[in-house]
């Protein structure tokens, strides 16, 4: 954060979107994308802690080889509900619906999203879906695994499958509406001068995410719809007793749920693409490549789904093709990782909290991504599929990648959202706590997987205990790491130091307006005359730019360290 040496301390603006109107109706009936983002923030945080509770139950149970506190049936319910809450109600909406919602109109210089009422509708749809699933969790739970595989889910399961599936089905439409809104907004609402290649990479990432949302989500909707109708009305598409095909369910399920991984990680990549140039004070290396890589991930991501099904007896030739495509989809991610790293080279790096999260993301995403290649390799996958290796791999991507990006972004834009700064040192401690706790939790799971511990089992042989104890210990550190930001960010929203319009300083259009912004975002429609992340030609940022082409921009002095 920039030191305030001259002039008076910044003051909160008199009028902004938070105090424009008051009362519960002004929130529940708002069409302001910024307020809807905060509604989403509250609801995804709720589901994050619901899912986190289930995770803690799982980890506590696995402290001892025979299991500590749950019956096998309860254990099945815990890991299922952990997955459902985290995937469908936290990870998928987290960055797009909270930060994308808040930032996309600000970043492209628009007053709002293209369809503000549909935006509000999407939140209500999400809440209704969430209610159904919560009801299912409380009344009977769910024990099918988050994948709802048939015929377990449609015929045999003795848990509340129908309401849970209906809840996920409904929530899917909130995702479709959000994606539709973003796509149209980026196409038609950009400010004058905001050309496609001046868009921040956060917007590009969300554009790619929206493509996945609108093409993939309807397929899971019809799939879960059919599964629900099968359970309730006895239709037979996936029921082998009628000649239906359970593998067909898996194909349709993964046709969405693999691309859904990119719905979770692409927005986090977008956040990282904002953080790294800002705290290295350098234009992002290979802007066009990073933008194109987002689209490439969205497209190729649709062509890899059967790598979740290598062992279902599909044809060897199909498996080889999908294995090959799985390796191909790693390339755009690698391009991004190399470009982020290259951006650091010769930059004026400062280690503010958001940047710590960005570094955390880089390392953890790297491990998660590379272990994905192990799983995409046909021979290796036979050994390690459905083991803890898989669990560790996708937690490195989902938690190490997506959640790190989410928290990094929350810290970075918190001064814009609330107008106030979070406590820097506490935040750094939390970031380190998270990083350590995360690795303690999930690295041992790679070892467990290689040793052969299957996922979703409620007991294990005694020789695996040491790693399970490490994992549980790490999870408790991780829990503290999550509770800390929730507490101090909430505190900072009311009592933090006033941040000013552009505390870092960063180059995006969202930093050209006041913090917190006006309801209409900008006093006058901005005209964009600069390229994205161009620190050299932005005297308005007040950075010290030495003469000479390519010389590094001098990082602002830190006021609080």
């Amino acid at each position, binding site marked *: 954060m920039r030191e305030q040496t001259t002039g008076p301390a910044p003051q909160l603006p008199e009028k902004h979107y938070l105090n424009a109107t008051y009362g519960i109706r002004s929130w529940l009936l708002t*069409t302001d994308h910024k307020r809807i983002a905060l509604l989403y923030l509250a609801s995804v945080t709720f589901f994050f802690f619901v899912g986190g509770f289930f995770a803690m139950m799982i980890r506590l149970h696995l402290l001892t080889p025979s299991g500590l506190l749950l019956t096998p049936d309860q254990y099945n319910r815990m890991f299922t509900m952990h997955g459902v809450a985290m995937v469908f109600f936290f990870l998928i909406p987290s960055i797009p619906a909270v930060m994308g919602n808040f930032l996309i109109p600000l970043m492209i210089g*628009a*007053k*709002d*999203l*293209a*369809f*503000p009422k*549909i935006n509000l509708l999407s939140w209500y749809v999400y809440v209704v879906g969430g209610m159904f699933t919560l009801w299912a969790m409380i009344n009977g739970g769910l024990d099918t695994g988050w994948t709802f595989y048939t015929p377990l889910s449609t015929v045999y399961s003795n848990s509340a499958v129908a309401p849970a599936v209906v809840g996920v089905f409904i929530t899917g439409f909130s995702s*479709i509406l959000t994606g*539709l*809104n973003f*796509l*149209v907004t980026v*196409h*038609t*609402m950009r400010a004058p001068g905001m050309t496609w290649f001046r868009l921040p990479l956060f917007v590009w990432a969300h554009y790619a995410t929206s493509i996945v949302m*609108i*093409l*993939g*989500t*309807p*397929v899971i*909707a*019809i*799939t879960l719809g*059919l599964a629900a*109708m*099968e359970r309730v*009305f*006895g*239709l*037979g*598409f996936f029921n082998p*007793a*009628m*000649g*239906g*095909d359970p593998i*067909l369910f898996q194909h*349709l399920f993964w046709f969405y749920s693999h691309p859904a991984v990119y719905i979770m990680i692409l927005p986090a990549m977008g956040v990282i693409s904002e953080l790294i140039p800002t705290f290295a004070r350098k234009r992002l290396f290979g802007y066009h490549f990073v933008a194109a890589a987002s689209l490439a991930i969205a497209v190729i991501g649709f062509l890899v789904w059967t790598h979740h099904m290598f062992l279902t007896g599909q044809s060897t030739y199909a498996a080889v093709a999908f294995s090959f495509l799985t390796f191909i989809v790693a390339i755009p991610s690698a391009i991004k990782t190399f470009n982020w790293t290259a951006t650091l080279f010769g930059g004026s790096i400062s280690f503010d909290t958001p940047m710590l999260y960005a570094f955390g993301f880089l390392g953890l995403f790297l491990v998660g991504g590379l272990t994905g290649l192990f799983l995409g390799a046909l021979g290796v996958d036979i050994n390690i599929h459905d083991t803890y290796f898989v669990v560790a791999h996708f937690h490195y991507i989902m938690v190490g990648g997506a959640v790190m990006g989410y928290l990094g972004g929350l810290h970075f834009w918190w001064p814009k959202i609330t107008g106030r700064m979070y406590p820097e040192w506490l935040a750094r401690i939390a970031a380190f706590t998270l990083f350590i706790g995360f690795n303690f939790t999930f690295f041992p799971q790679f070892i467990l997987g290689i040793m052969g511990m299957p996922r979703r089992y409620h007991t294990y042989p005694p020789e695996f205990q040491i790693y399970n104890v490490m994992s549980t210990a790490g999870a408790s550190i991780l829990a503290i790491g999550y509770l800390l930001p929730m507490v101090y960010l909430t505190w900072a929203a009311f009592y933090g130091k006033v941040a000013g319009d552009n505390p870092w300083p960063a180059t995006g259009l969202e930093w050209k307006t006041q913090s917190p912004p006006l309801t*209409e975002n900008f006093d006058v*429609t901005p005209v964009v005359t600069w390229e994205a992340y161009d620190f050299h030609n932005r005297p308005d940022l007040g950075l010290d730019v030495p003469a000479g082409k390519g010389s590094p921009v001098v990082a602002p002095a830190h006021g609080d360290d």
Partner: protein
Amino acid sequence: MHRTGALYGQFKTLEQQKDTATLGMWIFLVTEVMFFGGIMLAYTINRHTYFHAFAMGSNTLSLGLGGFNTVVLLASSFTMAMAVWSSQTSRKRLITLFLSLTILLGFVFFGVKYVEYAQKFHHHLVPGKNFDIFYCVNNPTKCEDIDAADMAKEKEELEVAAKADPDLNAHAQLYYSAYFGMTGLHALHMVIGAGLLFWLLKESVAGKFNAEWNNPVDIVGLYWHFVDIVWIYLFPLLYLIDRHK
């Protein structure tokens, strides 16, 4: 906030507003294509695997009712297109007329669909415990709406199909799962479309649409045509599987 013919707050020009709304509807239709695509994939795979059961199921549908409904829907697409044209050329009374005709044709479709569904329930052709593809052949007195010639033909076809596919009764349920699933989803879309048409009708009676402001008519028109096109696919897929004999 909403003022007819005027600009919503987030837009700068009416043209931008119209482009945005139209693009939004087209993208929504893309999601609909993916939505119906999933069930059509399931249909295709099952039809390929259990052709005899699907052909048999298809032959129990009434070509007359299905064909009539196809004509009805095509006609409703025409009246919808005329409603759009009337609004673009500010013919206010014609808008109301054509919207009413579209709604009327939509309800004719529902009526015919109700007759077809009811028949399937009476003939025990709904997937589930009571499903029995041989029900009418074995209980001709319970299915008096089928005339003797058709019944004889059905019996003959059933014998052939049962020989080709020993588990015909199970696999035929897959056909009816596809039939009820696909036509049910299509009908649900029609119900939503009819709701939108009633709203348009209310607005048009109030005289709100003219050459400058006809976006809603245009966009609901797109949706209505899409639902129509879905039926254009469903009719041959469900009714015409094996009629060439």
